Structure formats: structure tokens, C-alpha cells
């Protein structure tokens, strides 16, 4: 049974239609790369699925239910640039935020919650930075903190918006190892990804997106030159003309 089903999704930013009749479904235990040119609507797709941006029409269901009923089973790693890292807090505190749903609203975190968060930081190789101000972390370290925050949520389905953007090789490796571990644990992960070179190594499924689904399925069958050209073709042609 599909863990995520998206049917006829349309969305727009003011005058521009960004998503056009997007339809696909994702099987549990898969690691999918969402790939497409700039402005293809990759981030928007995540935001619309997670009710962070309004949709014009279409249906999205997780585990057979609408988003509102299964929020706690879904983890989201936003783009690193979407928050203000000057906010006065430390790495451990940010990871703790992933537990707020489980702790319950208006309750104070317990010692066990703190230990839980520390373990998650440790898993991302960031245990030594628990008390570090988030403004004093490097880009890669900030990304790891975001990932630790998602891990501690213990969700079944994860959405990550460009977790590999602007990180160094060590962080990229650490993050990919974590994603593969998540997959082995039976979790489902969807990742917005930019680097075409690494798609085949990193993901077992690919969703080629350019405002609509160009192709979707197992990487071996779908990530062909032909399909990639169809997804990026418009942009390439535009570049030649210019």
C-alpha cells in the first residue's frame, strides 16, 4: 500500500502556477530524490503536501489519511536558510524542538527528553556541540542539527528540503549514511536534491519534477538521459537561445 498518495495537485504563487496536476504515489521503505531545475516547484511541492502553502486543488493523503490527522508521523527538514540562526539558543535546544509534540503542549521537557535529544545529536556526530550557540555552527553543522531534530521525532515519513546544499564532503557523507539507516529501519524518505551526478548513488527512487511529474519510479529505470533532458530541456534550450 502506498504510504503517500498525491492526486491532481495544483498550486500557485500569486500570478504564477507552480504545480500543474502533480500525481504520484510513494511506497514505504523507499528513499526518493526529488530532482528538477530551479523553479520546478520542488520546495513548493513539499510545502503544499505539508499544508504550509495553500493548494488550488487536488488531494494528498499520508498513510491513507489527510495531513492533519497524522502530523506526528511526518518529519520535515526545512531549508537551512529558512530560519534565523542568530536566534539565541544552542544545538541541543533546537534538537529538543523535535520532541515538543511528544512532550505535549505547555509542558516542560523532562530529563529523559534531554537524553533522547543528546543521543540524536550524537548519531549525527554533533555530541560535542550540544551547548554551542547555533550562530557559531558552520553550515554543515547547522544542517546536521536540523537532521538530528528530525531523527528525534521518530517519524515514519520524512521530507527534506535540500539537506545537502552547501555542506562539506564529511557532512554530506554523514547525512547520506543517516538517510540510508532510516531506510533500513523501514522509514520512507523524500529528499529535494540538486546534484545530478550523485542521484544514482544516493537514491533508489527518483521523482523528476518540472511543474508537473516528468517521470517517477526506480532510479535505474527512470533516471535516463532522455528523462533528465525532458525535465531540464526547457531550461537548456533557453540557455542556448540566450
Amino acid at each position: 500500500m502506498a504510504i503517500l498518495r498525491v492526486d491532481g495537485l495544483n498550486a500557485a504563487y500569486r500570478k504564477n502556477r507552480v504545480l500543474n496536476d502533480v500525481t504520484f504515489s510513494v511506497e514505504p521503505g523507499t528513499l526518493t530524490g526529488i530532482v528538477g531545475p530551479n523553479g520546478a516547484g520542488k520546495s513548493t511541492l513539499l510545502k503544499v503536501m505539508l499544508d504550509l502553502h495553500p493548494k488550488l486543488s487536488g488531494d494528498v493523503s499520508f498513510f491513507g489519511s489527510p495531513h492533519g490527522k497524522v502530523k506526528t508521523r511526518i518529519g520535515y527538514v526545512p531549508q537551512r536558510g529558512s530560519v534565523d540562526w542568530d536566534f539565541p539558543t544552542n544545538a541541543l535546544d533546537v534538537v529538543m524542538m523535535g520532541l515538543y509534540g511528544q512532550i505535549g503542549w505547555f509542558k516542560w521537557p523532562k530529563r529523559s527528553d534531554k537524553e533522547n535529544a543528546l543521543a540524536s545529536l550524537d548519531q549525527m556526530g554533533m555530541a560535542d556541540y550540544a551547548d554551542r550557540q547555533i550562530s557559531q555552527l558552520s553550515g554543515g553543522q547547522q544542517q546536521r542539527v536540523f537532521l538530528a531534530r528530525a531523527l528525534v521525532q521518530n517519524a515514519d515519513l520524512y521530507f527534506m528540503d535540500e539537506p545537502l546544499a552547501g555542506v562539506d564532503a564529511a557532512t554530506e557523507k554523514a547525512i547520506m549514511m543517516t538517510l540510508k539507516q532510516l531506510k533500513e529501519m523501514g522509514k520512507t524518505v523524500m529528499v529535494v536534491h540538486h546534484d545530478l551526478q550523485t542521484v544514482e548513488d544516493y537514491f533508489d527512487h527518483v521523482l523528476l519534477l518540472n511543474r508537473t511529474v516528468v517521470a517517477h519510479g526506480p532510479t535505474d529505470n527512470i533516471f535516463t538521459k532522455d528523462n533528465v533532458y525532458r525535465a531540464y530541456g526547457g531550461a537548456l534550450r533557453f540557455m542556448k537561445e540566450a
Partner: protein
Amino acid sequence: MTLLLSPNTQWVLLSTLILGMAAGMIGCLAYWKRQSLMSDALSHAALPGVVIAFALYGSKNLPLMILGAAISALAGAFFIGWIRSSSRIKEDTAMGMVLSVFFGLGIMLLTIVNRSAGGNQSGLDGFIFGQAASMVRSDVYTMLALGIIVMLVVFIAFKEWKLYLFDPDFAKGLGLSGRWMNAVYTFVLVLVIVIGIQAVGVILMAALLIIPSVSARYWTNSFKWMIVLSAVLGGGAGVIGTMLSAAGKGWPTGPFIVAASSAMFAVSLLFGAEKGLVVKAVQLRMQKKQLAESWTQHAAIEEAQ
């Protein structure tokens, strides 16, 4: 000094203390919501409501004027949101528009009411620059009750505020409604403004929200301590400003509170433990010194070889 010992003055001091603390705490929320200017727009927008409430009731009645101020400020908040979402006008421009239009309207109404019978004894002018001394015991009770409610809202939902201010999208994913948090935020912001305008006045109320939180930022890297410190600085400024203004007859409270608060800011800017200019300069100097020492050591080793 005997003035300070009178029971009424003590009550007034207590109320500006609580007001300063509540404003300091809410100011931190506004600071991280990047909406410090919003508090200025809303406090100016409160003036027409105060004057209309007075005109309708016929004499000064604080709860009623607070209600008027709240309605008027909320209308201002609504217009700012509406202008921003339904036109291409940006939020700062919308705030500027609402601030000036509402304040202009307020002054216009105030002039009319003051010219009419009974108006000139109303003490309505006190709402512009603040007149803490004009508060009576029941006014103080109202302020205390509302101020404590505001502080409780910050305290009880501390963890939720932190999450909402740092990463609203993630908060929404966990089921914390951004719309609700924003509504509560606007509510407590307006509450602080309306209880403050009698003591500090509509023009300077924003200073009490903005200055303590910015000063606190220079001392700490923890959101919790920033709120605590901002409350302490705000409360301190409230008390000191009120005491200073009590030294002369008819001196407005607002400007003195702002002066006290600004002095604290100047100290924070220079000597703040985390971001203060002096501390930064000392750190830079020490780094340079260390570097120079390591160079001399290297040179000595090379020479020895």
C-alpha cells in the same frame, strides 16, 4: 523624596514596575518576530479608541478607555495585515500608513474633545506622553491584573513561543498553529500597549517594548535569559523613570522611563557580556596578542635551529 513615600506613589511605582516587566517580555517576542516597529504602529493606533471611549462615556473611566484603545489598536493591526495581503504594499509601509493615519485621527478627536465642555479637565493629554501620577488606586489594580496575565501567557507557553519564533514552519508540522500563535501574540502585544499608554503615553510606549529586549540581547545567548533580563531591565526603567518624573510637578512619566531605559541600553551596548563593544574589542586584542606571541616563539625556535 517625601513624595516617594506616599502610599499612592508606591502603588504607581508598583504598576510601572509590572508594566515595564510585561513590556520587556513581550518586546522579546516582537524582537524575534522581527516586528519591533509593529508595537509602535499599534500604540499610536490606540489613541483614537481612547478618545472615543472618553467622549462616549463623558468622563475618565480606565477600563472603558483600555477597551477603546484595544479595539482601535486591533483595528490598526487588522488594517496592516489587510493592506499587506491584498496589495503590493510591504509591511513597513503599511505600518507607517496606519501609524500616521490613526495617530492623526486621534489628535484630531482629542482637540475636538478638549475644546468641548469638561474636556480640558479630562487629563486626556496625559495619554500622549504618559502621566503615571494621575493614576488612582483602581487604575493600578487594572494594570496589575492585566500585566500579570501577559506575563503568565509568556511563561506558560515559553517552549511554544521559542519554537514558533525560531521555526514557524516546523512548528506547524508539529501541530502548533501559526495562526493561533499570531493571534495570541497580537492579543498580548495590544494588552501591554493599552495598559501602558496611561503611564507612558502612546508616542513612547513602543520604546518600552523595544529598548529592554535589544539591551538584553547584548548580555545573553539564551532565549530564556533574554526574556528574564529584558523583564528586569524594563521593570527597572519603569521604576526609575517614574521616580525621576515624580520629582517635578506635572512632569510626564514616559520620557523619563525612556531616558532610563536608554541609559541601560548604552551600558549594554558597551559592556554587554556577549555582544558588547568593549568585550568584543578586548577579545580581538587578546587574539592579536596570542598570535604575536606564537610568532615570536616560532621565530625563537627557528633562530635556535
